[in-house]
Structure formats: structure tokens, C-alpha cells
């Protein structure tokens, strides 16, 4: 990926995450845009790029909160790695399998955040039942949009 295009994708995604969670959270819920994009990038471009994006997007999320610095970076980077491995086993080109991966990745993301918090802050970070139940679906709704954007970006090249 062209470095300038890479930086633009990074900044645009971070901006969308901030914008959506701050101004468009619905009933206290908003999609984990950066998690979805990490999964989509790892599925489309391979785990190396997915891990790099996941790590730096995670740092962005960590900088927004006073809690553990590095937790989101670790978890999103691992998400990129995991999807990269999964990509070799199953075909993630279609939206349906990709959505299912995002669905499961959301739960694993919440669980991993809790475990990292338990390990480094001695408290399990529980996000609440409502995001736990609803956010995987919400994230899945974002997958087609991310995939369409991806295809459009590829067509522009």
C-alpha cells in the first residue's frame, strides 16, 4: 500500500471511530469501527498489514482514555494476527464469512480487554451486557460498508 494512502486510511478510520462513538452512539452503543477495519484489512491484505494497523489504531484508542495504555494496541494487533491465520484456513472474500469473523472477533475483543485489564489493573473490565449482546451485530452491520469502501478504493487505483 502506498504510504500516503496508508496514512490517509489510518487517519480517516480514526476520525470515523471518534465521530461515530462521540456523535452517533445509539442507545449507548456504537460499532468498534477500528476493530472491524483491522479484521477487514487482515482478511483482504494479510496479517502483516492488519497487525500494523491494529497496533497503531489501538494506540489511538488508548490515547483517548485514562485507562491502561497499550491494552487496545495489544488486542487489536492480536486480532489482525488471528484473522491473518484464519484467512489461510477459510475463504474470507465474501461478506458473510467476514461478518461471522467480525461477530466472533467482537466478543473476543471484549474478553481480551477484560483479561488484559485483570492482568495489569487487577480489575476485569466489564463493558456491560448491552454492548456485549448488541455490539457484535452492530459491528457486523458495518462490515458491508467497510467492504464496499475497500472495493471502491481498489477500483480507484
Amino acid at each position, binding site marked *: 500500500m502506498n504510504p500516503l494512502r496508508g496514512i490517509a486510511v489510518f487517519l480517516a478510520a480514526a476520525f470515523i471511530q471518534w465521530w461515530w462513538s462521540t456523535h452517533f452512539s445509539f442507545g449507548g452503543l456504537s460499532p468498534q469501527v477500528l476493530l472491524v477495519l483491522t479484521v477487514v484489512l487482515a482478511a483482504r491484505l494479510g496479517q502483516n498489514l492488519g497487525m500494523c494497523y491494529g497496533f497503531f489504531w489501538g494506540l489511538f484508542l488508548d490515547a*483517548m482514555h485514562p485507562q491502561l495504555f497499550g491494552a487496545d494496541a495489544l488486542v487489536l494487533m492480536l486480532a489482525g494476527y488471528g484473522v491473518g491465520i484464519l484467512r489461510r484456513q477459510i475463504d474470507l472474500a465474501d461478506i458473510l464469512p467476514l461478518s461471522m469473523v467480525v461477530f466472533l472477533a467482537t466478543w473476543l475483543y471484549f474478553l481480551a480487554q477484560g483479561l488484559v485489564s485483570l492482568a*495489569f489493573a487487577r480489575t476485569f473490565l466489564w463493558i456491560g451486557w448491552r*454492548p456485549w449482546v448488541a455490539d457484535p451485530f452492530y459491528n457486523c452491520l458495518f462490515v458491508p460498508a467497510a467492504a464496499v469502501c475497500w472495493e471502491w478504493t481498489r477500483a480507484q487505483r
Partner: protein
Amino acid sequence: MREIRISNYILAVFSALALFLLSLPLAAPVRALKACVIYLCDPMVYYGAQGVGRLADVPTGLARLMSADMENQRLRAELQNALWRGSELEALRAENQRLSQALGLKVPGRREALWADTIERDPLHWYNSVIVNAGARQGVALNAPVLGVQGDALVVVGRITEVRRDAAVVLLATDEASSIAAVLSTAAVEGLVQGDGGPTLRMNYLPPETELRLGDRVFTSPTSATFPPGIFIGRAISINPRDPFLTFQSVEVEPALGAAMLHRVMILRPEARSSIEEVR
């Protein structure tokens, strides 16, 4: 094969870096990296919030412009009254200060209000923290009290835990790490209001003999190190059953300002020396 080897290297390097960041949050390199990340990310959030605010204001701007003149006339009249009240208040404050000094009481430092807008909040940390668009450049200090407005009254929101150049992180009263010395209005007893990461607060350490009533109002205590006294925190909504192994009672408190209402907050900052001298 080569790609797998590279990905393993990336995994090892990033994992080690993340674990280092998590293990040593107070180490100088970690703080430097965090400051660097914040320096790079903050302008996007800060100017993004300004842009969104301006766009959102466009439709209402015209209507506001039309009513502004009428409101301006009314406010001018109110300002005349406020000026008189202000000078009266200033005289009372000076007298209070003089009498406090004569009695040997500690005179609290004067503070001035700074209004700020919420520019970042995440549903996953809904009851923990928000970021506001005022920082070191605007004179925000660490641990400065943050208040909100509910109706005509000022209410407690939280305190500043991180100051950036043009933004600051507010730890909400509902966060687990937050605690505020408070007083219960009807029983006039002191306790400690603590957050639990959810929508309600808990007021602990109330004397066991105190008669507690639902709907009791909770205010900040004069002994609070952070907040001015008499600021409304919330109302008691349930009394926890007495635990025979504890020497105190506790009540659940509903915060005066719900987490969803934190659009605009007031930060109290120490008054600039020059302006104090100017008033004197």
C-alpha cells in the same frame, strides 16, 4: 513462508512493546510515547469537534440570529442588575475574607469558571471518562473540579485527571477510581460518594445511627479537597441493608447529571493573579 516469518517478527515486536507499555505505565519512555501519540491524535479530535459543531450550528444559526437582537435587549437589562449584584457580592466576599482572617480561618483560593464542550466519549467507557476541549493553554489544572448545569443549579460531574495542550480528560464521578467527600442534606452527616463504573453512585461511611430517607439530597462537603462546598451531587434512591460486619451504612445515589447529558461542562480553575489584583 517469508510472510509468516515477517508476521512472527511483527507479532513479537508489537507484543513486547504493548506489554512494556502496560507493565510500566509510569516509566519515562512510556509516558513520552503516550505524550507523542496524544500530540498526534489530539488535533484531529479537537479540530474535528470544532468542525462538527460549526456544521451542526448552520441550520439553527439563522433562527438564532433573528432572536438574538431581542435576547440582546433583555440581557442588557439583566446585565445592569448583575453588575450591581456582582459589586454587592464582591463587597460581601471581601468582608467574609477579612472576618475569616480575623478568626484565623483558612481562606479558600478564588476560582474562575471555564466552559468547555465534550469532544470525545466512548460508549465502552460511558461512565468513566470524557475528553473536553480545554487544556493547559486555557489554564486547566490537574484535579480541577468539573461541574455541569442541571436546571438552574451547578452539579458535580468529575475532576480533571489528565491535561493536554488543548484538551483534558475528565474522570467522571461514576468511575470506580472517583471519590468525593459529601454531606447528606437532611441528616447533615458526612460520607464518601464513590463511583462503581455504572449509572449510580454509592455514599459510604455514613454513621450507623443515622436515619436515612429516600430522596435525601447529597452535596459536596466543605472538607472536600477538590470541590467547593454545597455543590449538588445527587439524590439517595435506595438504602442498602445494614451489614452487621460493617460499622457504617451506605446509600445508592442517583447522579444529578446523567452521563448522557454531558455536552457542556464548567471547569473551575484558580483565578489568575492579575485579575485578583485588578479586582482589589
